């Protein structure tokens, strides 16, 4: 077994080869550790690549914390995730898409992620608890383990009616505006003799969503209804936010809160009840054409969940009050929510009122900025949460802070606990090994005196503890005080940064925690840590079989001082590096712009180093984990100080003498692609460039990206047509405006379903370079979104890596 609790072996032993793009197939991705309530086991998720099917597969494993061999808990060819122990330790609940798919199972959400329950005593296979038509996204156990609150998308009747009205547009009007008999006459005149087949009556006609499009034939054959293929129907759009990168077009579904009772083990595994359920499942389901509205109502007979919220909002992050009576959750319920990204915390009773009416949620936060990840204090009187006070800004430039409110007093009682902590809460450091990290909520100590939270600092993620007991303020290293200057609340860093900490889970009594962590040479593994930060121990080595074979390159930190700030970067050198030789060089630029590179394993970097390049990755101004002044330094100045920081870093590396300056390349994705384009328009020092999922023209980006206007509002100085000065800014800061200066051979890699940076951005750059006679090539990846390099099809990810490396191989 590769997953062991034994001491790590040294990886020097045998003949080692260089890592290749194809080793991606062999990598294992570990996430989401959860310590059992009795502290004896930790459950976690392990994903691997299913090479033949060109996709990923994830299963749940568990590891005894006392030592021993990891054990695969769930199996099968599908995806199992989000393991969560019930507080009483009797169940391990998880999400799985293993349910049978197919038209018969549609209303039961077959093939979509559903909640499954596995008895923790190991007796019996997992049983399915939910049958939601659109699947389940996120769930939490009630404190008494009697029920589970989950969030799931359902077709929202109001939105559905709006969509229907939109589709009717231009339709139902026919009858109002004369020519009332057109369709009827057409029917009579129809070539096809269908005497007696009258048109639908007015009411029936209006049921068809395209009644003006009524055909001469009976209503069920009308133009629109003839279309059996949803994907071929016109999409009528009247909302502002209509598409999302990775999610496609926004439909009538909205995410709501549900609560479902967890049956007793005897019920779920007993003889009588399971046979009754079998009867339900085999009942013939009506399958004739259903109207959209009916589909909303139609629920599987086995679905016993109670819906707690509704309306044209999306709810998430539900958290039970300690007494189980209340649920706090997050939602954007602004009237203007389509145009204003926002998040507030709301409260509702966890029980439906008599009669089943939806309770009106009470808003707890003051609506001054995004407020998420609520955490109840152990006494249930307070809620800590994460957010900042810049309403509408979701781009990540401002520091997320820790806030506290009194549940009774609500918004009036809100105060910031981490004012002096000049870092943003949450995980800011990225790599190509994962998309997102999962739950990030702060955690209270059982005595209510401390709050644990994760935050990033200088390229690594750490666990911190804030003590609510006031002490005298103390200054931290480099002037970055960890404490609240006035309140004097001390903040202590607990983890070491090696590895960088991702999701974590406390054991009983919060004596210990298990976390998933990564360092530059190790993708995620599990680590055990005492709550005071001592006694770190590595629990797994999921990638050791691969990494024992390959040579990796160890990063070397490089820092420069500019304008009174420190800019940090890292160098990877080829494994057989000799300082007396000269090497080709590649500058890697991260996206965001408010994200960061740092202490995590990144396959692309290691691959390039293995191919013989010196690789520089860094955190120029705009990056996160250095405080919001650093991150916001590029607001309204894209291509300014960020560009200067990068060039200064490159200069510093070149000064070392081992870079062959005639063989330097540059690459980056998203904003990193923007910067790549910017660089080739401003310097010829790079001899090859690879621009990935890039922005070339901010003017059209504004109107085509799913997030374009939000960039316009908060990142860039306004909207392009605001005034001539703003328009000029857009032009002056668009790489395409510097086309005439571009000479660098450039590979353009873009996904065809990238809705963040639409492929039109790549097309414009390609046409421009091509017409200017600059060597270029555009590679378009079908069926991929913005996240190709981290979540794309395995084959595509490998080809992407090969093309990046290959362009440099041929041009440097």
């Amino acid at each position: 077994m590769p997953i062991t609790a034994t001491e790590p072996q040294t990886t020097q032993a045998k003949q080692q080869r260089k890592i290749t793009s194809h080793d991606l197939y062999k990598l294992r991705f570990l996430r989401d550790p959860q310590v059992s309530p009795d502290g004896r086991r930790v459950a976690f998720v392990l994903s691997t690549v299913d090479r033949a099917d060109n996709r990923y597969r994830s299963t749940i494993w568990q590891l005894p914390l006392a030592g021993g061999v990891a054990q695969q808990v769930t199996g099968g060819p599908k995806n199992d995730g989000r393991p969560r122990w019930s507080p009483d330790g009797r169940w391990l609940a998880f999400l799985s898409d293993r349910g049978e798919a197919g038209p018969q199972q549609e209303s039961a959400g077959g093939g979509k992620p559903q909640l499954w329950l596995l008895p923790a005593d190991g007796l019996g296979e997992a049983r399915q608890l939910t049958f939601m038509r659109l699947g389940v996204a996120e769930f939490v156990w009630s404190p008494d383990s009697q029920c589970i609150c989950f969030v799931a998308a359902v077709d929202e009747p109001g939105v559905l009616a709006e969509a229907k009205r939109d589709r009717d547009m231009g339709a139902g009007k026919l009858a109002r505006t004369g020519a009332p008999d057109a369709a009827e006459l057409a029917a009579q005149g129809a070539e096809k003799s269908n005497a007696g087949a009258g048109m639908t009556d007015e009411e029936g006609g209006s049921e068809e969503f395209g009644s003006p499009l009524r055909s001469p034939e009976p209503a069920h054959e009308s133009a629109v209804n003839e279309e059996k293929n949803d994907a071929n129907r016109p999409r009528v759009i009247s909302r502002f936010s209509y598409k999302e990168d990775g999610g496609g077009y926004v439909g009538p579904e909205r995410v709501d809160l549900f609560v479902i009772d967890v049956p007793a083990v005897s019920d779920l595994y007993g003889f009588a009840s399971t046979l009754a359920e079998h009867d339900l499942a085999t009942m013939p389901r009506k399958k004739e054409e259903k109207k959209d509205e009916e589909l909303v109502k139609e629920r599987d007979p086995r679905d016993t969940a109670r819906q707690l919220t509704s309306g044209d909002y999306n709810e998430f992050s539900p958290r039970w009050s300690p007494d189980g009576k209340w649920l706090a959750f997050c939602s954007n319920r602004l009237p203007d929510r389509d145009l204003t990204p926002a998040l507030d915390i709301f409260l509702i009773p966890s029980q439906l009122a008599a009669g089943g009416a939806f309770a009106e949620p009470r808003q707890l936060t003051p609506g001054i900025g995004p407020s998420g990840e609520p955490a109840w204090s152990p006494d249930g009187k307070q809620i800590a949460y994460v957010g900042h006070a810049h309403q509408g800004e979701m781009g990540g430039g401002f520091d997320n802070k820790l806030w506290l409110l009194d549940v009774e007093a609500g918004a009036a009682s809100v105060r910031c606990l981490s004012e002096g902590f000049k870092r943003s809460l949450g995980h800011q450091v990225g790599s190509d090994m994962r998309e997102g990290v999962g739950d990030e909520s702060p955690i209270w100590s059982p005595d209510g005196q401390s709050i644990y939270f994760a935050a990033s600092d200088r390229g690594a993620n750490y666990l911190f503890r804030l003590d609510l007991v006031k002490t005298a303020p103390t200054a931290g290293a480099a002037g970055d005080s960890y404490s609240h200057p006035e309140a004097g609340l001390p903040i202590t860093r607990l983890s070491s940064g090696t590895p960088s900490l991702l999701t974590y889970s406390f054991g009983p009594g919060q004596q210990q925690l298990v976390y998933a962590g990564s360092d530059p040479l190790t993708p995620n593994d599990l680590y055990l840590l005492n709550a005071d930060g001592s006694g770190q121990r590595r629990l797994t080595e999921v990638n050791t079989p691969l990494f024992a074979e390959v040579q990796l390159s160890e990063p070397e930190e490089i820092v420069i001082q500019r304008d009174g700030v420190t800019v940090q970067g890292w160098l990877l050198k080829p494994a057989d590096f000799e300082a007396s030789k000269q090497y080709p060089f590649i500058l890697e630029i991260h996206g965001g712009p408010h994200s960061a590179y740092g202490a995590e394993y990144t396959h692309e970097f290691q691959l390039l180093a293995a191919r013989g390049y010196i690789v520089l990755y860094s955190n120029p101004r705009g990056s996160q984990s250095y405080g919001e002044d650093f991150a916001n330094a590029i607001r309204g100045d894209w291509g300014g100080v960020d560009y200067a920081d990068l060039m200064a870093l490159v200069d510093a590396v070149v000064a070392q003498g081992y870079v062959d300056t005639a063989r330097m390349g540059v690459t980056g994705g998203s904003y990193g692609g923007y910067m790549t384009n910017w660089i080739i328009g401003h310097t010829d020092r790079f001899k090859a460039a690879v621009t990935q999922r890039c922005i070339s023209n901010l003017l059209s980006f504004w109107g085509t990206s799913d997030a374009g206007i939000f960039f316009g509002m908060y990142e860039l100085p306004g909207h392009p047509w605001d005034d001539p000065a703003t328009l000029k800014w857009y032009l002056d800061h668009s790489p395409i405006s510097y086309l005439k200066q571009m000479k660098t051979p450039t590979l353009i890699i873009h996904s065809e379903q990238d809705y963040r940076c639409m492929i039109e951005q790549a097309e414009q750059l390609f046409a421009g370079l091509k017409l200017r006679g600059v060597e270029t090539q555009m590679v378009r990846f079908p069926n991929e979104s913005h996240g190709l390099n981290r979540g794309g099809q395995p084959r595509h990810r490998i080809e992407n890596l090969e093309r990046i490396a290959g362009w440099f191989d041929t041009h440097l």
Partner: protein
Amino acid sequence: MASNPKRPFAPEDVYRLRTAGDPRVSPDGKWVAFTLRVVDRAENRYRSNIWAASLDGNNVRRLTSGPSSESQPRWSQAGRLAFLSDRGKEGERDSIAGGGKPQVWLLEMDGSEARQLTYLREGVSGFEWSPDGTRIALVSEVEDAELVGYEERIRKMGIRATRAPGQPEAELPSAAEEAQGADAPTPSEGDSSAQRSSPKPAEGETDSSEYDKSEENKPLVVSRLHYKFDGTGFYDTKRSHIFLADVPIPATDMEDILAAFDLGSKPKKKDEDAGQGAAKKDEKLNPKLKQAQERDPRDTTRQLTSGNWDDGELCWSPDGSLLAFSSSRSPERDYNISINDIFVVETSTATLPPASGEATGSFPVPRQLTRSQGPASAPVFSPDGRVIVYAGHLDPNDHAGCTPVRLYALDPAQEQQEATCLTADFPRSVGAEGVMATNGDHRFSTDGSQLYFFAGDRGNSSIFSVPLAPPTSGEGAVGATSSGSGPEASTNVTRLVNGDNFRMTGFDLLGDGQLVYTMSQTFIPSDLYACALDGTNRRRLTDLNGKLLSELALGTAEKFTVENEGLQIDGWLHKPAGFDAGKQYPLVLQIHGGPQSSFGDGWTLLNHVLVGREYVVVYLNCRGSTSYGEDFARGCLKDWGGGDYRDLMAGVDYACTLPYVDSTRLGVTGYSYGGYMTNWIVGQTTRFKAAVTQASLSNMMSDWGTCDTGALFDDMEFGNPPFDETALYLERSPLMHVRKVETPLLILHGEVDYRCMMEQAEQMYTALKYLRKDVEFVRFPNEPHALFRRGQPRHQVEWLGLMAGWFAEKL
């Protein structure tokens, strides 16, 4: 039924419209074969069959039927009718024989059913009979070895690059390994050794194309400026070339017929014995090429041309020894899509590579007759074979269609010659109109002394003749023509049929006496007509839409002219049926696309839908329109949204003076450039109360780099690329004026519109919606720019319904 009151036109009448095209008179002069296009509603597509009308107007016969689609009826001298049909069997087994793709079929007109003549893998896109009727020349696509190799190199650039010193080849899975992976049993639960034990990727024959078995899932590697085309999609590695096929004499021998049948029913051989000799030699051949070279045993055609270019538009010399064709072979062809040339090639098959097996023969080298000076198309041999006349012009940078297409005479024996212009002082463009269309229909008179051709004039079509003798004035006279002078100003061109109230779509001649043509009129969607060459004895040969039209009351239309800034602007008013001069009607301005195209007295679907909803529709030929001379067509260059906009407003101003127009209820709509203008108008004036912008442009800056032909077309219209002309591109982008928009706007756009990309609609929508303007946006999946030509009928009906419905709600 007769007692039924007539009703207005409705969108779903699209399902019933029938269109005639491609008329061809039989050698005996009795019949006109033509195509008839109808909607196959169940299949949600168009379908066409071959019909024939008798020239006396008494008889119309359907010649082909069934669910297949037929086109290009062509008579041999002996009166045999060949045509293209996709009726061949589909399926994997038949893919080598091009099953389901258009092939040449032959109808003997003796009562027997049509027989299939060709079995080309990629089907046939065009063909012509040899003058003696023993052969046909045809155009089909083949994988181009150079292009395949090029694409392969480009593909491999990333993947099989030179390695850093000491680096092994990238380990990509071989096809064999991939296959093994797919067949391998699913690893048992928890057996994570499955991946480790998988065999090491074989080195050698691997590249990215073997990664993925699904073509659609493979990354597309683009290295040429022009890589996509609206309606066609992304360019592939196939090129159109000319093939020759012998035509069997009318089959009388049962053995012949059965022998052909035997061939077809022979079991297809698998790769291993498909040309055993060649197999070994071809080991290194690209699999794509190898596969492409596999041919059906019944395919006996000989390929006549090859190379990394597209050949087409065939014409035989009268003695059958030469084929003239047009092709874009300029080294600049990737950058300039408006340059092509006329070539001739010997048709002797003696040295040609045989139909199958080893490639031992060689292709003859065609002679290039023209000098790559601009578009050159549709070559026609004179009856004595001594002259070729083609249509084209000498402005290689006109990517918009402003320069009049002229007729030029060539000596078939002389390479790269200076062509003689026949219509130098004729101030109109020869042939059909439309952006970048250079395809002129022109025919020699029997004695070869005259050429007959049709051309657009003031929105309508006429037929003209010009003597073959070169004009005295020469090309230099062109500059002297002004937009003010009509066709009659020409010294040597004579107008034969004055079609001042129809628009022609195709024509053919019978000797020097009879003329047949397909056309449309404001109230006739399509019909076939015949007349004498002087325009007399004009008669309608078909009544294709008679039944539908008998149910409809389509209103009335009248032409008017307004003067604006010294220009005469033609306009039309289309009034609803039952028009009551005492009432007031809302008015919708309809704007044509292009901008280099025109309205006229032809069938305009969008107008009928609006008139059917009781709107008066006004439509105009503003500056930029064609058929008014070159200066007028160039009138909008570097001035989109300027003079063209003012011309249109002058027309609307005039309409608003009419007592029956309610000037408080104005609407505006347009398609393509008409959509650009709609977007522009709502940013300039608030006089319109509702607007529908169709397949539109909003941001010329991004259009330049995203439109399939944008880098050339926008350069022409705006004078320069955006990086040299930023101010103009911005100022004339409707997006820059969104703050001023008060008119409720409906945006209709096709999702695979590669001419005006979807991003154009998205930008307009995002800006207006963000500003809380009244705007809606409908995206049509799977639809190109040419929705109304190539789109799904159902989508057309919905599109029209949405357009009309928006006005109904907002106006």
